[in-house]
């Protein structure tokens, strides 16, 4: 009874946070669109959905997400095998490298692919091929982003599958392929499905990539919501589209929860460190292929982006970077763009702190697995991942402007919105670790005289400290790249990095473009450094110990090393 109360108390703070900063703004904007003169005009839903151009957007959103997901799986599954089962020099560094796009703001990715595939880009100047007008640019950029989701979700589990199961099948007369089909594939299938659903979710709600690479003719729901809200000011249509996206995302999350639950079926998991072997025979070719894909798909765009930022009007140099220090002659900025770096870091730090507190409390409440109510709470925490960030941002503007929540002029508005997308990551990182703490360790402490609060301090906290660090890092990176909501609420005199990049890209002229590349490079470096700080010390020691997959049950290994978090929590597209 008391435990239920404590759990309820812990859940109360995150619930209040979500009510005030998620449900309320979203409800406000939906109400603004669909309510007039005290009456609901639900007929507008039918009107909007009947519109041919809206149906076109819906269709494009669905099929590009499906195509992106299929393409990502096709490209990344071989890599999942290579990273899971083959030992080769530099593997750890490379695994960190392929994760970099995952934490990159989509604005940066969009600019990178623009630099690679667009007018005057690498493919244009070499082969005269421009892809920025075709849908391929979007699809390739989506693969670039979500490569790590598949590699880490599927590969993480693959590395922990006991190879002896395969060997047992071989001894029983199964050929190599049959053993794979009958033993490995069934074990992997749920995690492949979970990864696919996550990729589908991220690409379904894709904003920055489509905004930059989609041109005037292609739009996802999210992009369309942005256009309707910020350019056409058609709030009723935006409200309907928000609702549609909300329903779609809830459905996708439900499918995801279902695949996760199925995955919790008993698998024999072993220490991932022991399952790798040196490549032999055909595996060498596979390894070479995967390395080539990583080089072309991931290193090349990032490299081209950096190169373009140095390619100034007077040859290679730091011209664009220098230009970032001044306001410039047009009125794009009220302050030198370089100030955006400081703003971003400051906002992201505060946002990470908020996300850590809210997400930490939520994870603590969710630790003791409990009934349907808590599962609902868990799902609720995931919702901001898929809800239109544009809606959230605009909702902040129109709802948090009167007492008791008058934050109109407060700088806190930005970190609050950014924390909203950070919280799900904090929960995803912390929860498996807290759940991996053996309940009997807590009982042992209780029997030795520790009160429940003391048990938490003595047992849970020390083990969760490292996970908290990782969670804060991810929340920081996510906040750093958040664009969809920030673009509405950041004040003109204090833009964040992604907002500044987008503003520069929106202006004509080679200098603006070059500055955008320079600023993107800065953002990329900050994100990469942030990731490497998180990744390297973890990879070096405890990397292989833990569920690399959020939601996988920890193995029943000895409790000697408390599960060290090594999750790349499936991260949404930053730019939503």
């Amino acid at each position, binding site marked *: 009874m008391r435990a239920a109360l404590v759990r309820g108390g812990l859940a109360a703070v995150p619930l209040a946070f979500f009510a005030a900063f998620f449900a309320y703004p979203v409800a406000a904007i939906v109400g603004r669109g669909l309510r007039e003169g005290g009456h609901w005009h639900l007929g507008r839903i039918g009107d909007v959905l009947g519109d041919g151009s809206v149906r076109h957007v819906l269709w494009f959103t669905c099929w590009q997400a499906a195509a992106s997901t299929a393409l990502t799986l096709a490209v990344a599954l071989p890599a999942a095998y290579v990273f899971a089962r083959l030992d080769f020099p530099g593997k750890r560094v490379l695994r960190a490298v392929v994760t970099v796009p995952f934490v990159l703001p989509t604005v940066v990715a969009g600019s990178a692919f623009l630099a690679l595939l667009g007018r005057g880009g690498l493919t244009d100047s070499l082969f005269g091929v421009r892809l920025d007008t075709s849908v391929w640019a979007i699809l390739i950029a989506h693969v670039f982003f979500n490569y790590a989701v598949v590699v880490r979700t599927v590969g993480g589990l693959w590395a922990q599958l006991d190879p002896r199961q395969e060997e047992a099948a071989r001894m029983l007369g199964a050929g190599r392929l049959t053993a794979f089909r009958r033993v490995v594939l069934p074990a992997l299938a749920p995690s492949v499905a979970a990864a696919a659903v996550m990729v589908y979710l991220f690409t379904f709600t894709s904003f920055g990539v489509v905004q930059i690479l989609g041109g005037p003719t292609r739009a996802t729901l999210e992009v369309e919501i942005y256009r309707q809200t910020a350019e056409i000011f058609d709030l009723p249509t935006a409200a309907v589209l928000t609702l549609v996206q909300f329903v779609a995302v809830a459905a996708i999350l439900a499918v995801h929860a279902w695949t996760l639950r199925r995955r919790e079926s008993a698998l024999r998991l072993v220490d991932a460190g022991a399952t790798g072997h040196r490549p032999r025979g055909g595996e060498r070719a596979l390894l070479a292929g995967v390395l080539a894909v990583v080089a072309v798909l991931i290193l090349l765009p990032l490299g081209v982006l950096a190169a373009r930022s140095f390619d100034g009007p007077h040859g290679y140099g730091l011209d664009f970077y220098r230009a970032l220090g001044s306001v410039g002659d047009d009125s794009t900025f009220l302050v030198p763009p370089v100030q955006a770096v400081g703003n971003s870091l400051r906002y992201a730090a505060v946002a990470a702190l908020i996300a850590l507190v809210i997400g930490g409390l939520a994870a603590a409440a969710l630790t003791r697995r409990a009934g349907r109510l808590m599962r609902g709470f868990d799902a609720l925490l995931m919702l901001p991942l898929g809800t239109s960030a544009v809606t959230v941002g605009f909702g902040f503007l129109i709802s948090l402007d009167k007492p008791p929540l008058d934050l109109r002029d407060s700088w806190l508005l930005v970190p609050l919105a950014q924390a909203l997308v950070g919280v799900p990551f904090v929960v995803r990182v912390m929860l498996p670790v807290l759940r991996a703490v053996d309940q009997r360790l807590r009982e042992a402490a209780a029997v*030795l005289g520790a009160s429940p609060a003391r048990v938490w301090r003595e047992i849970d906290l020390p083990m969760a400290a490292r996970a908290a660090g990782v969670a804060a890092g991810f929340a920081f990176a996510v906040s750093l790249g958040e664009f969809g909501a920030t673009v509405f609420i950041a004040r003109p005199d204090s833009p964040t990095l992604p907002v500044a990049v987008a503003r520069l890209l929106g202006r004509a002229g080679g200098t603006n473009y070059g500055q955008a590349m320079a600023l993107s490079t800065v953002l990329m470096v900050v994100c990469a450094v942030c990731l490497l700080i998180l990744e390297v010390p973890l990879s070096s020691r405890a990397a292989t110990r833990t569920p690399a997959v959020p939601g996988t049950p920890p193995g029943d290994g000895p409790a000697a090393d408390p599960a060290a978090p090594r999750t790349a929590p499936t991260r949404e597209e930053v730019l939503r």
Partner: protein
Amino acid sequence: MSDALLRIEDATVRFGERAALDGVTLDVAGHETVCVLGPSGSGKSTLLRVVAGLQPLDSGRVLLAGTDQAGTPPHRRGVGLMFQDHQLFPQRDVGGNVGFGPRMHRVPRARRDARTEELLDLVGLPGASRRPVATLSGGEQQRVALARALAPEPRLLMLDEPLGQLDRSLRERLVDELRRLFERLGTTVLAVTHDQGEAFALADRVVLMRAGRVEQVGTPLEVWRRPATEFAARFLGFDNIADATVRSGRADSGWGALPVPAATPDGPCRLLVPPGAVLLAHTPAAKALGPAASAPLGCEVVGRTFRGGRVVLRLRPERGPGLDAECSLRDAPDVGDRVPVVLDPADLVTLPRA
């Protein structure tokens, strides 16, 4: 038994439909060592968790020193529990583990450290205080877990499969050490195990459990010599059990008519012949029985296993079901030999028919 340190009254715990504990009543007196014995799933561990306060009761009471413990959380019960797989705190060293309990009870640091050293000496790990627990062997972990459980000076120490995961020789040595340690400290102990050898070596009294109920309580010798039910007998490894009918002091069974104590009520029953009561007819022990022995029964030896210095023979008698017999290495016949055996009536046990 009003002076019982621990009294469990009619304790019942249900997990859904299944009763893990079903009306268990048990007393443990101060300074007594009681072993709860039973197959896995019989509710032994639940019993310990109920006493520790980690598992709420559906009905019944737990009293410690006469006080009802309902509503008292685990950390205020003053009992110690040593977990099955030790559950040492991985992020603390040996000293940190042992000193944890005293620290929770706000024992000043100097006294705490002294107590830790003293206990580590006691369990045979002097000076191990600074060692990380990950470097300990299974036996050492067990000792640290024991020291940790003893450190807050619990009024009742509970052990859950204390030697479960250790190898056989280590287990036998540690049982002996534990027994002497508890005698020296005067600790009251409630232990659960599925290993009869461990239970009989450790306990003043043995409680045999089956499916959440107490099947039999007694001293090790009582339980060993007089199992109360067929379940108890089979759990202890006795398989020479057959249907019999008692009529005025004689039991008619497949093996022939055998004398049973005069007080045995007439009627159908199950008859247990412990392997030690099956004697090869040519051995001095059999001859010493004289006229008390049953009529010789011709048997064929169909199998042999070695248990320490004794041999267990699997026999196929000329009448009645198969018999296990025990003999010394010197007397052991070969497989395929035909040997006559006699049964020692003093060791026969009649069991109620299920």
